[in-house]
């Protein structure tokens, strides 16, 4: 059962992300992004990382993409005025690079053994909490400085006069 679900959600995630970059309208891209994020959350659930899955949905689908949609709605470019993107050599190069990466993934999957043997509950609330407050405590604290700077920056940039 699990391999089938994995392939299913993996396929949804990949297809969704291809749609994100190929859709003409940004709103459609944003919606496909949500689909992709949900599919990735489902993959987390399959790996027993329920907590990560919930956080993924709350933070990304629930807040980040909502902000994207917000901006798209605020700018609200009419459909006929959307910029037309031409196919340039650079773009083909990008596709080629992506192909190379996929190839590499295949090589990676076939040739190397991944030491991915993490504990079964590594995605649970308890495990994440313990990791955050022991091994990764410094990273956790530094994140707060980063967020503080970012918050102040957002206000400093957005406000006309402080």
């Amino acid at each position, binding site marked *: 059962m699990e391999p089938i679900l994995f392939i299913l959600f993996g396929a949804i995630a990949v297809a969704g992300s291809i749609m994100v970059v190929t859709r003409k309208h940004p709103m459609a891209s944003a919606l496909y992004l949500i689909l992709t994020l949900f599919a990735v959350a489902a993959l987390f659930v399959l790996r027993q990382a329920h*907590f990560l899955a919930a956080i993924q949905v*709350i933070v990304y689908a629930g*807040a980040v993409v909502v902000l994207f949609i917000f901006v798209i709605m*605020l700018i609200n470019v009419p459909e006929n005025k959307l910029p037309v993107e031409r196919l340039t050599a650079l773009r083909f190069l990008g596709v080629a690079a992506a192909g190379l990466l996929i190839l590499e993934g295949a090589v990676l999957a076939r040739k190397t053994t991944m030491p991915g043997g993490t504990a079964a509950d590594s995605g649970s609330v308890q495990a994440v909490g313990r990791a955050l407050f022991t091994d990764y405590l410094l990273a956790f604290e530094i994140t707060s400085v980063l967020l503080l700077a970012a918050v102040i920056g957002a206000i400093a940039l957005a406000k006309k006069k402080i």
Partner: protein
Amino acid sequence: MESFVHSLVKAVPVLSGVPMWTLTLTAMILSAAVLLVFALTFGGVGSYVLRKVAGDIQARIGPNRVGPNGILQFLADGVKLVLKEDIIPAKADRFLFALAPYFVFVGSFAAFVVLPFGVGLIASDLNIGVYYVMAVTSLVVVGVLLAGWASNNKWALLGGMRAAAQIVSYEIPVGMALMPAVLIAGSLSLQDIVRSQGGLLGVFGWNLFHNPFTFFSFFLYFTAAQAETNQTPFDLPEAESELVSGYNVEYSGIRFGFFFLAEFGDMFVVAALATACFLGGWHIPFLHAEALPAFWGNLLSLGAFLAKAFALVLVMMWIRWTLPRLRVDQLMRMAWKYLVPLTFVNLLGVSLWLLIFKGKGIPQMIASLFG
């Protein structure tokens, strides 16, 4: 779900010949159906009660034509919604317009899955229950935004954006105000949270009376949740006087019905979460529901849970018809300048309390004084 199926197979040996996954699947579909019927009924009856309460508060009679005291009004409304013409505006984005109500309804309905209705009455006791509810709520945000945008109508657009901004902002105090209950139970599972409030202290076992911070927390949660579900005095997304009806202004027929049902579903989810996290959930004061025979235990605990939740729903309606609406800037200021800091302070207070008093609440300490 699997454990339920296991116990079912044990109770009814005939079923042991049936493959496990069919039983699990059937149980899943059945429980979903039960929840759906409950949500629909609640939406219907809720709308009737809402109008009656509104009538009482505004010194009117309210619906009184269909059936005795107008009790069948909601059936008439339901039939009307289903039969009405489904209009899609010419300039709307047809696909997204059609998609949006499902997002909203699914987001609201999916939260029912983890609500602990009784001792064993829970569709799925996820170990991340509280976060799950917050995660599916994000679907509602997306749906509301889509509805507003796809309608191609400026009121709908403004309503959608207001709603999304509001839900995203108030999601933080809502989540933070629920955390004290999570801390006390040491688990995100709603069933665990309810269990942690049992004991022989009766109502004083509830998290509401655990310590001053949790008491405060309940009111913070209730206020923030009122806003997250777009209820008056926080109903700016709909603000009839400014936006006609907000993000759903272009919807009619059954599509409007979905928004309508989702609104009532949200109301119940909020009340149920408050019940589970602060008011002892399905615990019946001075009665050990878990120790009763399974049938009676489940029945009584279901009754207790629904009674508490419905009482809270009534309070929400009461507030809704009593207070005037806030302004947009006031609303945002309330979330970011007052509720968010207060909930953080509160969370800190609860954590310190648990640390200092080794997890004991005031009622427990008083009880231990008397042996």
